[in-house]
């Protein structure tokens, strides 16, 4: 038996599950305007995964990176959900990301 595949699948499932959690929390405390930084970190991790020697390490780095890219596209959707009342809306002032005015001009990705 080779447990690499099922094990990696189970870890991918955990990473995706954690993705739901951090998207909800991240939008609540930081706001959706941080999406380019999250996406950039995800792209960096996917690129870095080719440099990791271990098969487990490389695969996990790639999965976490891809999950961050997906999560960056979910942040805007989560903000809309909170505004509609489907999730708690944080009325406190959220920290603004660097270059926020430029980011506001870009259309946030939506899958």
């Amino acid at each position: 038996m080779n447990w690499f595949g099922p094990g990696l699948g189970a870890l991918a499932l955990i990473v995706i599950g954690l993705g739901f959690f951090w998207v909800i929390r991240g939008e609540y405390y930081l706001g959706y305007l941080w999406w380019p930084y999250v996406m950039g970190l995800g792209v960096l991790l996917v690129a870095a995964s080719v440099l990791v020697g271990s098969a487990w390490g490389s695969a996990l780095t790639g999965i976490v990176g891809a999950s961050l890219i997906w999560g960056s596209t979910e942040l805007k959707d989560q903000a809309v959900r909170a505004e509609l009342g489907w999730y708690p809306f944080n009325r406190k002032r959220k920290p603004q990301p660097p270059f926020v005015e430029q980011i506001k001009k870009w259309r946030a990705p939506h899958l």
Partner: protein
Amino acid sequence: MGTLETPKIPPRTQTGTRSPVPRRDEPVEIAKAVVERKPYLKMAFANPYNLSLLLGGIAASVLTANPLPALVALGLGLAAETLAALNHNLNISGALGILGMTLLWDALEFRRQQKRVQRGHAPANPCNPRHWRLMSQGQATTVDWLAREPAGRPLSRDEILALTSKRQTQ
């Protein structure tokens, strides 16, 4: 720790039954023969674990009245996981493992998506008879709530109603 020990190999059973998967320490010829006699696909689908889970899935699908897509995802997911466990190529095993788990997740997501449509959180498809039935009962909408930019504040009830009528007239 730190001492050299010879690996302990469990004694072979006297019943004559063999594991369907050859151990790594067995000669390659025997391994090939066993694998050739038991093709991967047959092993993936026709094993007691898969079949029992599949039967459980059928029961769950009947109860939730949403059988086919969830069943297909469940069956394919279990098959992919079994194939991943039987394949010694890391790339193929890893890809099948991830694919299998996402398919198993999808089996659950079909049910969750149905609930989203029922609540009006996901747009209903009027061409889908199941969605059409929900729409005729006033339980679903074709409005895609997420296809808009955030306003930066919670929307009032009137704003949401205005948004609904505006989207439905589009």
